[in-house]
């Protein structure tokens, strides 16, 4: 991207264009196919949730206040990510960087909690090998966690790019796509929270 180009960018326009351009549409279609991936994992989980092979079910395994904390952290992260995009609209580079760092820290906190839960389960002998229910659980929740990890790497790369290039068309577009990705993961988590955890402890 040329220098004159980057100076001439109208930030307000750039954000709207990025959200409604062809690149965003392509990314949106990727997200929809990702939804179908998660749908098959949800279907698998729903079918196998009772197949505990004599082992403990979700009711004995899940700590609900812990899961609520995870949910609220991810939700806040999603909210901050929305604010970041708004900051980009008004060309507030420092606020954008700060927001991205907060988004990253909240995402990392979420991932740490999730890995803590996994570690405890495995240490207590409830690994994915123990039953079909646990296989389905680890696959579904782990796939979401893998997406979150990718998002965290994406944030680091974007912070570097924005520090180097500033808020130009290209970085704003990536920021827009990232916000779609992050909000999407939050929505998937809401359904994991409901189907896996809340219904699991009923």
């Amino acid at each position, binding site marked *: 991207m040329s220098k004159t180009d980057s100076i001439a960018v109208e930030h307000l326009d750039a954000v709207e264009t990025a*959200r409604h351009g062809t690149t965003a549409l392509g990314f949106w279609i990727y997200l929809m196919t990702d*939804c179908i991936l998660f749908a098959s994992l949800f279907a698998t989980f729903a079918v196998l949730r009772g197949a505990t092979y004599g082992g403990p079910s979700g009711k004995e395994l899940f700590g609900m206040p812990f899961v609520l904390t995870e949910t609220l952290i991810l939700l806040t992260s999603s909210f901050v990510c929305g604010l970041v995009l708004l900051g980009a609209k008004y060309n507030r580079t420092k606020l954008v960087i700060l927001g991205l760092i907060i988004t990253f820290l909240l995402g990392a906190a979420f991932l740490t909690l999730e890995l803590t839960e996994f570690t405890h389960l495995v240490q207590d002998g409830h690994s994915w090998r123990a039953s079909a229910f646990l296989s389905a659980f680890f696959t579904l929740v782990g796939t979401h966690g893998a997406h979150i990890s990718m998002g965290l790497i994406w944030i680091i790369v974007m912070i570097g790019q924005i520090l180097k290039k500033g808020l130009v068309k290209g970085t704003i577009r990536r920021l827009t796509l990232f916000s779609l990705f992050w*909000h999407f993961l939050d929505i998937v988590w809401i359904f994991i929270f409901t189907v896996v955890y809340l219904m699991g402890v*009923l």
Partner: protein
Amino acid sequence: MKEDAPVISKQPVGPATVWSLTLGFVLAVGLTLAAYFVVVDHWLYGVWVVVAIVALAVAQLLVQLIFFLHLGREGKPRWNLAAFFFMLIFLFIIIAGSLWIMYNLNYNMIQMSPQQMDSYMKQQSNAGF
């Protein structure tokens, strides 16, 4: 790399504001806490618990789609929305179809002892299946 073509649609979209984002966030937190306490504090009983938490999850889906993803705010043609509905159809077929088929398999097979299964099969073949 080619820059974005001006756009698919150039109609103005309602911009996100701090207030719309905050409202979305507050609603989402409220719905999450409501679902949590319905289950943990036993606000409801029986099948109503499931009905309530599914309804709350769907409500939260709508809140996040509208306030965070701004779905439906694009100008025509609404490709994002069309892709979304297309995905919903697939989602429904995969989830409802799997549960339906696997429930029937379970019903027909797992609850039977081998002897029961044997007599069931004989009965079926006598009936002409």
